[in-house]
């Protein structure tokens, strides 16, 4: 107990450090690129002298390190994330909140799809180990995994809306509409192979456990043995590991999927914000992601400990497992 608490505290102590490094890197990189939010916002109206005055007004003409200091002070002391040059009437949390909500829902849909298909497929493949079905099934889903969303989204649109005319053509009609089908498929399909392989490995491990032999010895039919005894032990670690580690992949996928399909989520907005050089929005989202990633990783580690006592908490000072 002592060890666990200490471990969690030590891991959490790394969090501010991670955020500091990430925020500085993001701050520096965004300001390093060509153009600036004032210039982009002004569109066809080109007046470099006026740009310079407005840049000065927002402190964008200061040395980067000083700008960073001011930003850090505002965020830590006042909870002020700065101005968004895209929507100047609103605070950044107000702007990104609804968009994160949309993306989170999309992410949940994609996860559900991934697990709903991945886990049964993995278990089935494990049970069929040694037959052609095992490598065949896994290969099919590896194929989906190796198609980038940049390709799969247009193909899905072509197939489902243009050819088969099953779905409305692009756009976003709310979270409970048919327009969520394509993004869910695009984000969910690539993850299935990973889940299936993990589930397969876990199932194979479980198949040789004593309790499975006991269950069979009791005379239970094979179906009950697999669903009741094997699956239960295989599923939990798969869920936690994949949820934690695919967080970032999901966000990356969302960036392209949402942009291509016009879904008003955080992925599309990040892209739009980078294009608009909306520095403060980019920074806020990057920070939020870093934060979520660190915590999710920690949660995964702890769940694995909870599930499998053989995994020990070793704090090697790098904050990892």
């Amino acid at each position: 107990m002592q060890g666990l608490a200490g471990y969690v505290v030590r891991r959490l102590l790394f969090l501010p450090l991670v955020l500091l490094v990430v925020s500085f890197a993001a701050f520096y990189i965004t300001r390093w690129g060509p153009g600036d939010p004032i210039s982009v916002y002004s569109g066809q109206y080109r007046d470099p002298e006026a740009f310079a005055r407005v840049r000065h007004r927002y402190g964008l003409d200061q040395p980067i390190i000083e700008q960073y200091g001011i930003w850090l002070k505002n965020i830590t002391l006042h909870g002020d994330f700065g101005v968004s040059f895209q929507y100047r009437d609103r605070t950044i949390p107000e702007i990104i909140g609804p968009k994160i909500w949309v993306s989170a829902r999309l992410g949940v849909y994609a996860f559900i799809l991934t697990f709903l298909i991945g886990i049964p497929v993995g278990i089935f493949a494990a049970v069929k180990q040694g037959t052609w079905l095992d490598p065949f099934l896994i290969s099919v889903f590896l194929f989906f995994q190796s198609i980038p969303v940049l390709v799969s989204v247009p193909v899905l649109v072509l197939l489902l809306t243009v050819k088969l005319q099953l779905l409305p053509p692009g756009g976003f009609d709310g979270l409970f509409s048919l327009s969520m089908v394509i993004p869910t498929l695009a984000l969910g399909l690539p993850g299935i192979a990973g889940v299936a392989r993990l589930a397969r490995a876990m199932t194979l491990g479980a198949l040789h456990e004593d309790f499975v032999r006991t269950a069979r010895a009791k005379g239970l039919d094979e179906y009950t043995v697999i669903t009741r005894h094997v699956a239960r032990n295989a599923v939990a670690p798969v869920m936690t590991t994949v949820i934690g580690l695919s967080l970032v992949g999901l966000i990356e996928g969302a960036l392209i999927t949402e942009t291509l399909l016009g879904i008003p989520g955080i992925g599309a907005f990040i892209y739009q914000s980078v294009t608009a050089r909306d520095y403060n929005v980019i920074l806020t989202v990057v920070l939020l992601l870093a934060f979520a990633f660190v915590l999710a990783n920690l949660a995964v580690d702890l769940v694995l400990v909870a599930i499998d006592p053989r995994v020990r908490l070793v704090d090697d000072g790098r904050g990892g497992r």
Partner: protein
Amino acid sequence: MSNKLVLAAGAVAAALIIALAVVIVLVVGGGGDKNSQASASGSKAPTASSSSKASSGGLRVRSTDPLVLDPAIAQDADSAQYIVEIYSGLVRLGSDLKVQPDLAQGWDISADGKTYTFRLNPNAAFQDGRPVTAGDVKYSWERALNPDTGSVTAENFLGDIVGAKDVSRGNARTISGVKVIDDATLQVTIDAPKSYFLYKMTYPNAFVVDQKQITANPKKWTLKPNGSGPYKLDSWRLGDQLTLVANDNFYLGAPKLKTITFQLSGGSSLSTYKDGSIDVSGIGVDDLASVQDPSSSLNKEYRTASNASVDYIGFNTNVPPFDDPKVRQAFAMSVDRKKIGSVVLKGAVPVATGLLPPGIPGYTPDDKTYAFDPARAKQLLGQSRYAGNMPKITLAETGAGGTVGDYTQAIVQSWKENLGIDVQVQQAESGTFFQDIDQGRYQMFHLGWIMDYPDPEDILDVLFYSKSKQNSTQYNNPAIDAQLAAARVEQDANKRTQEYQAIEKAILQDAPWMPMYFSTQYALVKPYVQGYELPPMVIERYRNVTVNRP
């Protein structure tokens, strides 16, 4: 031991996940929890509210979020469409693009054309009932120009007033050329007798804001602005819905249309229109043909109107090979714009006949651009300085670096076919693109110009005067400069228009631009919506609309 550890680790993991959720909610919802909650649960709201609004006779349109609702800062059409309804200025543009009285019921112009005396409408008031005074106008302009406000365009639209530039450059707090004679009289002195000054006053940057409200709530006032326009901002959920309600005390008469609901969540506009949950819809190029088909059920509801805007290829007249006018002319002559327009753009937009778009004084439908003449183009190229030693040429346009659009592709193909010149297309995202435009780095670029006010000055002077900051082609012609300077202050309106027409022709001869097309707007309007106009510029337009939804 292991059981205890298991439980503890599980509990901590659960706690972490909850903590993560809480932090995200705090960060994201902290500033405006009402807003984010409303939006979160509001994903179903548009349909719910649209059915409830159906009986109230409001208008439902699909649109985009405003970037900013502060008129001093706004300079984009997305924002302006709301600002012109919520706020007002001394004068406004009518749907005929003529200047009409607004907060000012009349004005006198001195004999030298430099001093304007505005008489305010005695009923002019903010939406909270407080009268709008000459002092409010002065405050609003000084605020717009003040560097602390952070407006990029205020100096452009107010800068003709004597002393305005001292304010925008931080050397003064008050505009010396603006005098409050009494509450209802404002005297404005401008630096030269520019007849387009009143047009500039119709731009949002010159609109009136409520000093009291801004002083009391400097950061959040635009979420409930106390404007003086015909509509009040009722609610605005970012990315979801914005609602305007009538200001029944509006000094020019209570609006007939009581509510306007703007749906901001994106999606297929046409299908939403078909199922009846919006009353007005834009049409994409791909859907145009089906709507234009006379046998289509939607054809009767189809409307089209011009936009005061022109799409063009600009040649940088400072760099090889386009510093030789013959090369520019050859390029301009070797593109069959009519064919590209009908094939690639499906005839959706009229081919540009000059620089001045329809609706702008001086526009004529006869073609003043170089006609398609590949033989002459080749000949000109042969006579040019770069005959036989043509440098590599790149055309720049905004884009994500993906595939080049059919339209650009067709232009580039024309040059290859008719001149034998391979032109590379470079796509740059807007941040890079505009920076390189500012620094004159491109040989040629593809861009559009949207008029801000309906005067030829807003395109000819602004884009082709050698000392104009917005002269992106670096065009420098002393003869044209002299003519532009004369036209700027010409007092006789007819003569002035003729002068601009002559300037337009001369510039086209020199070919710093190859004008491509005049952009056009397409809309579907339900038959039960009356009085809905499609003006070529963003102007106040909902007041007289009536909706008799069956």
